[in-house]
């Protein structure tokens, strides 16, 4: 195992809305090593995006607040950094790709200008070098005829191309950590494969660590080294990718895997998880998954499980397994 690049310890991020406090991230811990890809899996609203926005300290202001925990990046706690210091980290050391390529580019500026912005604010480059760098970035993400593309606007491009431009922006300063928030859900199947391949290649070239947020175990199987499964603001299971696929321990992980139709085998019925995810504003006592768990026991409804290591590097938060 390599050196730890990012370590999140007991992170708590709450959303203070008019209807009350929502515990969007409730005691999440995980770490990412250099060069490693961590998959953060969960359904919508489980807190995976909020976790990553917390790392960048870009929570919706003033609704989202980090109320506890530590985020240690390269041996420094990011929570102790000022906004000005954070700005030097964003885009340069940690960067992020958002889900929807159609809305993540400013429609009123040329793509050249949008790629230039992070370079300009983090590096001192003169004009000709800046232009060279932009073209280099466009080539890196395999955009054809980059010299001409510089002057074009986002609306002149297809979704797949836009997402590659977003990639070029995020990667323009060679960050140490890239957070990709469901970068391919809005793309078509073949374009999705193109983009994933591209990300993998660039990751190897740059020696970059990556957090891949997704709801799809297929993507995890394809690109991740380790996985953390999130459910209602907590990590319920985390393991190496093979370990997790071969021996899923948490009932939620098992159910989620069974719920996916598979190409390779014929299944009569998919496993389903009954009911709905709980309302994060009013969590019942006990395990958050208890109400939907097929293997629920009496104790699950009153005691909260804690994450504990079962095998080497395989942690799970379930009272039954422990």
């Amino acid at each position, binding site marked *: 195992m390599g050196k730890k690049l990012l370590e999140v310890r007991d992170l708590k991020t709450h959303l203070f809305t008019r209807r009350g406090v929502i515990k969007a991230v409730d005691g999440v811990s995980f770490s990412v090593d250099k060069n490693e890809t961590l998959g953060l899996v969960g359904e919508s609203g489980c807190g995976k995006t909020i976790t990553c926005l917390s790392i*960048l300290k*870009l929570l919706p*202001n*003033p609704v989202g607040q980090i109320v506890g925990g530590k985020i240690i990046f390269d041996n420094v706690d990011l929570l102790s950094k000022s906004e000005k210091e954070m*700005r*030097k*980290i*964003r*885009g*340069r050391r940690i*960067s*992020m790709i*958002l889900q*929807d390529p159609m*809305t*993540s*580019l*400013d*429609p*009123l*500026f040329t793509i050249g200008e949008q790629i230039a*912005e*992070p370079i300009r*604010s*983090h590096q001192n480059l003169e004009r000709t070098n800046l232009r060279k760098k932009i073209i280099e970035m466009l080539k890196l993400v395999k955009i054809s005829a980059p010299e001409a593309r510089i002057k074009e*606007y986002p*609306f*002149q491009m297809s979704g797949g191309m836009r997402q590659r431009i*977003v990639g070029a*922006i*995020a990667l323009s300063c060679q960050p140490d950590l890239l957070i990709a928030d469901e970068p391919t859900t809005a793309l078509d199947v073949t374009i999705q494969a193109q983009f994933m391949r591209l990300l993998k290649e660039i990751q190897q070239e740059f020696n970059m660590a990556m957090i891949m947020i997704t709801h799809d175990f297929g993507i995890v199987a394809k690109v991740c080294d380790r996985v953390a499964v999130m459910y209602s603001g907590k990590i319920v299971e985390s393991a190496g990718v093979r370990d997790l696929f071969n021996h899923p321990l948490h009932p939620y992980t098992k159910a989620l895997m069974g719920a996916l139709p598979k190409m390779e085998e014929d299944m009569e019925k998919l496993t389903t998880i009954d009911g709905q995810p709980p309302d994060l504003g009013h969590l019942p006592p006990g395990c958050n998954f208890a109400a939907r768990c097929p293997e629920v026991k009496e104790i699950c409804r009153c005691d909260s499980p804690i994450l504990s290591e079962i095998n080497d590097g395989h942690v799970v938060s379930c009272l039954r397994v422990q």
Partner: protein
Amino acid sequence: MQRYILKRIFLAFVTIYLVTTLVFFLARITGDPMDLIMSAESTQKDWDMMRHQLGLDKPIYLQYTDFIAGVFIGNFGNSLRWDKPCLSLILVHLPATLQLTICALLFSWVFGISIGTLSAMRPNGLMDRFGKIFAMLGQSMPIFWVGILLILTFAVRWQIFPTSGRGGLLNLVLPSITLGWYTMASMTRMTRSSMLDVLDMEFIKMTRIKGLSEVLVICKHAFKNAMIPILTLGSLQVGILLGGSVITETIFSWPGMGRLMVQSVFSRDFPLIQACVIITSTIFITINLLVDITYGYIDPRIRYQ
């Protein structure tokens, strides 16, 4: 882009033509315009003479074509009260109104946009609360009351500014604030809400992820994107200001077109009323046209259409 501009200019001409037609028919649909012009004690002979003089004895379609043709070459007929061409009367009064309107517009834009932007940067913060109350109050005060209140405090009580008339810069202050008051309030609200909308978008999150400074995020990206709805409102506000100038000019005895219009209403100066409405509408439509063209320069999606 050229096609877009041509299309806009064409549409503007169509609208001006339709406005002219609308004015013509509105004036006649409710009855004989002669009723308005003539007083009760005039004789039948006076009626016939007047009718002939104004061309109202011709069939309606001829009246219409004459009217349109007249408007086209800038001939709105003669004012009944002053017995001069309407157009030259209006041209004499127009500069005063334009001066007032432009000052009011500047006043409302400068304050409205800055208060609105500051409010949007910290929703529910101190500035936002102040901005909200301010906008709500502003939109609820009829401008004639604002004018009277301003005169009462600044002209009568403290005597800082003159009560009425056109003259130096001091004369301009109270009327501009009065006229711009309402539009400033709506501009504040509009800026706030469209800024909030834009700040909520994904590409703004992306600019922050890039590590850009807050000044760049707000002034470069958010502001340019929020400009489009703000400009739309701004061009609509010119209409409100042109209309509001009638009241403001009455309160402050400002020698502009608005007062001319009120005078012509009371003296039943029928051709002059028509001319006033058409000219102000044309100014309004022209400004909307300019704003439409500006969109093209801001938004590449329109430019490359």
